[in-house]
């Protein structure tokens, strides 16, 4: 019959409190869910379907099976852009993280003006990729003009130009994460190391860096995914130039845009002159998604493992 105290109260509470809230889904959940369906779920599913179709617009799609994927892998420009992106990602990953860590380490040593330096180093992060690309193309061309050349004329200029640009933009961002990590290193551990007579270098290797592993994991994956997804800066700085033309054995002319990264390659395949290649472009986009998704899952695993260890 009537139960006393807690049980009764809770049953009464959940009956009144939970039930009516659930009925308000139209107000709370529907707007976001509807926009999500239009802005993500439907385009995503349609994108997967279209990657198996031949199409120019979404209305005239015709199922052709895995043909698009075959032609994506046969596309020399696509394969080239994958390796180019991977190389860029590795170089940017190492440079950005080493430099950002060094800056963060110095700025947490109580030097004068640390806050001002932090402000300056983070600033480029707020400028958009297109504007950044344009600014740097003017800068690089301003220097290269003394040697009668341009960033658009040499593949390696474009490569290192983009590396420098990304360093300029991202060091400040990663620095912020490293500073937060460094400030969380337990003071008593550093104190203990000092009392035990550890040198600065030993303290860094044995105490600071092990404690910083979560930050290092985050920054590593952030730079990796940022590099793979890079589009705006790539488009604005070189747009893929210089191009390399080659006549294939079967007589067709193949063009490789030698500074074109994956995202730009997909974009150019979609919206280039050959609108029959859109199926291939969508297949490339699915492969691109799988690649970025795999990196994200690896990141999730890595952060989980770290959490278990602590």
């Amino acid at each position, binding site marked *: 019959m009537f139960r006393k105290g807690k049980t009764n109260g809770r049953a009464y509470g959940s009956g009144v409190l939970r039930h009516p809230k659930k009925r308000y889904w139209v107000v709370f959940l529907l707007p976001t869910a509807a926009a999500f369906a239009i802005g993500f779920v439907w385009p995503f599913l349609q994108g997967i379907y279209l990657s198996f179709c031949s199409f120019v617009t979404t209305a005239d799609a015709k199922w052709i099976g895995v043909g698009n994927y075959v032609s994506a892998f046969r596309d020399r420009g696509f394969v080239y852009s994958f390796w180019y992106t991977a190389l860029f990602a590795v170089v940017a990953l190492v440079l950005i993280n080493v430099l950002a860590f060094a800056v963060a380490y110095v700025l947490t040593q109580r030097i004068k003006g640390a806050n001002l330096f932090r402000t300056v180093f983070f600033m480029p*992060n707020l400028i*958009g990729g297109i504007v950044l690309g344009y600014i740097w193309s003017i800068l690089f061309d301003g220097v290269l003009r003394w040697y009668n050349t341009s960033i658009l004329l040499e593949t390696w200029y474009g490569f290192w130009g983009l590396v420098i640009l990304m360093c300029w933009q991202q060091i400040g961002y990663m620095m912020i994460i490293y500073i937060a990590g460094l400030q969380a290193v337990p003071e008593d551990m550093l104190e203990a190391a000092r009392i035990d007579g550890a040198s600065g270098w030993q303290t860094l290797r044995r105490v600071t860096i092990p404690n910083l592993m979560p930050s290092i994991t985050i920054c590593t994956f952030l730079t990796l995914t940022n590099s793979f997804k890079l589009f705006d800066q790539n488009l604005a700085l070189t747009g893929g130039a210089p191009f390399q033309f080659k006549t294939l054995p079967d007589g067709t002319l193949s063009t490789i845009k030698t500074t074109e990264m994956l995202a730009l390659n997909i974009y150019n395949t979609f919206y280039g002159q050959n609108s029959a290649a859109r199926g291939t472009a969508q297949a490339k986009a699915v492969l691109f998604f799988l690649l970025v998704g795999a990196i994200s899952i690896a990141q999730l695993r890595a952060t989980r493992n770290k959490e278990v260890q602590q």
Partner: protein
Amino acid sequence: MSDKQKGGLRARNRRRRMLTGVFSVIAVIYLLPVVVVLINAFKSNSFVKTQTFSLPTPESFVGVDNFVKGMTFGNYPFAKSVLYSAVITILSTALILLCTSMAAWYMARVNSRLCRNIYYLFVFSMVVPFQMVMFTLSKTADTVRLFGFWGPKLNTPWTIPIIYLGFGAGLAVFMFNGFVKSIPLEIEEAASIDGCGPIRTYFKVVFPMLRPTMISVGILEIMWIWNDYLLPYLVLDRNEYMTIPIHIQYLQGSYGAVDLGATMALILLSIIPVIVFYLLCQKHIIKGVAAGAVKG
């Protein structure tokens, strides 16, 4: 204090002073690209190319001519691009903050199996790169109307916030969800017992508590949307609407034929609001960015 300790302290102080010196030089170099934009905004076209790094001289200095010229550059008024950028950024951010916080609260509190699955779908959307959906998304925005089959299409600056809400909901829902879970349920229960319905409970009790996360998410969304190029470029009706990044890229597309001085003036105009915004809310920006990075 022994002499040795004093010596060590002095050495450390000297090292710190030296580091300040070195970093001052690096900081100046770091600001150089912005300075170059600043000085070139006042030079005439040919001097931007040949003397990129020198200060304006009497013969290269053109005063505010570049700014005047830049305003109507590329047959599209720059002021319109600025206006549309502002409209899109403000509307989208406001819509995202309001809708996703409500959705995240609802899903965290109701916590049924359906809600959890929808939540995982939101989290999943965070790892999907834009290239995966760009073609189909722009086609969808071209056909779907605000109220299903009537009303304006989703390809105008006034309706594109819905696209941003849909595509950008993942991160916002994820961040709000994390925070809602840390709010003790008792506070809301107390409000309910006092007679508040869910809507009143949300707006009077939960919403004010979400403030710190609102600021973090808001900063991230503003930075993303203000600088975003590809989504508005593909979704908006290109002949009628441009945003600042689209405008700048449009000018660069006609490289060589373009007045570089005037372009520099426009670039300067487009980074000034960003820098002012940064200096005004630097603390929040750095905190928001760090929060987004750690969670994303």
